[in-house]
């Protein structure tokens, strides 16, 4: 109908002569992604079915043994469950801590303060993850900052022995990924019209009912997006468990790293990576509709 009245319609329509411009503009970027993402993943998939690295002078054949090892040995299954549990717990803690924080930011603070505080919350997220994890070692270690603080608060508190434990890994990871949850929840919450809350209150709903029936359901896309975006990298983490978990920090991620950097069983590492990737893809597929709504 209004085709004639818009400037852009005739320009934006696809004409064959545009094909070359499109190729010229997008080609280099996507060629790069093919070489650095697609081909490596394809190569890794291929490696995961080999018995050894396919190099001259090596004896290798096609096999399923890397995958059967995962399904037959309890060790790997326990490891997988441990990693999944870690991802779940970290995402849960991030929600418990982050959602109220996002709510306070989005609904009770206004203007320049909100902008400044919001920036303060997300800045650490964009700074070096390795260094942030490392900084926890100084807080958590025996006779570290945390223990001395508690000792000063309650004399004779004694030792927590937090360093090199599962809990230390959870603390470090929650610290690393908390801003993610705050960010996604904040975006969801700030799209909720304040009038909705006032309307519900005017109809006699209590604060708790408003939270349960209005705010939580409407911010669900943000919560799920945050949880997924935390869960996925956490189940593939290896540096955080190594630094904060010590010997307690054995997860799927650290075992995969071992295969590539110390054991040099690349085919097994490739297979484990692909099993991890499969988990990631299942999660994305399941939550795809909600993630799409969130973006």
């Amino acid at each position, binding site marked *: 109908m209004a085709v004639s009245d818009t*400037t*852009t319609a005739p*320009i934006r329509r*696809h004409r064959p002569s545009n*094909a070359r*411009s*499109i190729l010229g*503009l*997008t080609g280099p*970027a*996507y060629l*790069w*992604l093919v070489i*650095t*993402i697609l081909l*490596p*993943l394809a*190569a*890794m998939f291929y*490696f995961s079915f080999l018995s050894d690295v396919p190099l001259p002078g090596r004896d290798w054949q096609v096999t399923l043994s890397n995958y059967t090892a995962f399904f037959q040995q309890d060790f790997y299954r326990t490891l997988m469950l441990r990693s999944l549990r870690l991802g779940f717990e970290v995402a849960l803690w991030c929600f418990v801590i*982050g959602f*109220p*924080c996002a709510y306070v930011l989005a609904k*009770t603070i206004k203007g320049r303060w909100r902008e400044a*505080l*919001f*920036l303060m919350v997300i*800045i*650490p997220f*964009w*700074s*070096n*993850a*390795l*260094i*942030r994890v490392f*900084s*926890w*070692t*100084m807080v958590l270690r025996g006779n570290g*900052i945390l223990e*001395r603080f508690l000792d000063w608060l309650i004399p004779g508190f004694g030792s927590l022995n937090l360093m090199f434990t599962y809990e230390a890994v959870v603390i470090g990871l929650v*610290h690393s990924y*908390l801003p993610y949850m705050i960010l996604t929840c*904040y975006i969801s919450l*700030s799209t909720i019209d304040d009038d909705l809350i006032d309307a519900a209150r005017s109809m006699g709903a209590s604060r708790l009912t408003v939270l349960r029936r209005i705010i939580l359901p409407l911010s669900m896309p943000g919560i799920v997006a945050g949880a997924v*975006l935390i869960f*996925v*990298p956490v*189940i*593939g983490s290896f*540096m955080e468990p190594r*630094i904060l978990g010590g010997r307690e920090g054995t997860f799927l991620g650290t075992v*995969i790293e071992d295969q*590539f*950097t110390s054991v040099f069983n*690349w085919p097994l590492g*490739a297979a484990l*990576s692909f099993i991890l990737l499969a988990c*990631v893809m299942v999660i994305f597929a399941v939550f795809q509709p909600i993630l799409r709504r969130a973006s």
Partner: protein
Amino acid sequence: MKARPVNLLGRVYLGLVLVFLYVPILVMAAMSFNSSQFYMLPIDWSFDWYVKLAHNDRLLEAARNSILVALVTTVIASVLGTAASIAFFRYDFRFKKVLQAALFPPIAIPWLITGTAMLLFFFWSGIGRGLHAMILGHVALALPYVIIVVSARIKGFDPDLEAAARSLGASPWQVIRHVTLPYLAPGFIAGALFAFAVSFDQFVISYFLSVPGVSTLPVEIYTAIKKGFTPEINAISTIVIVFSITLLVIVSRFYRFGGDR
């Protein structure tokens, strides 16, 4: 106006979360100025570790590598990403949705997987490891960010601005110079800063693609942490984190996080 108790509680809570987020970093920064090796309190203020750092050739070399890789990554990712963004804005084509969706994997797949896959493929295909391999990998991670940031800026561009400039007598080149480029500049700068930050802070990919003697700062710091704590790491880490935060505060001037408010 007095804040209601619920609001006050919320603010206190927000403050506690900020303490949780910042305390470890501040502790580390404070310790980098403590001359005691064993983090004894009270802090004995000194620049000892920074002086020592100035003579640590390994860390300095790694820092130079980090900056070099980040600069090259920034240039390549900005140019390729901006070109793709322009194509997405200007044309409608059948595979556009597919191409846009293809930006997702580099961000979404855990770096452990992309990193090990790159290691395996680069080693096997003869590309090898080292700084050039890191640049290959970092550009792939930075590209999606550049395209997203630049596209967000381009999307707000009113084609009538170009039409208006032409109706006022500007030649196509004058239109680009005086209207299109000045408009896109903030998006372009934000995209470039993003690319630099992504590369400069990248650890996992660099870790798998480094070879002994050729590594970046985060990789060198990780190696040092694994070997045992030395307060020099506090010093270099403090420098890195101050640098990153400054960079991101600058980015935030050009790009509004969390959509428009």
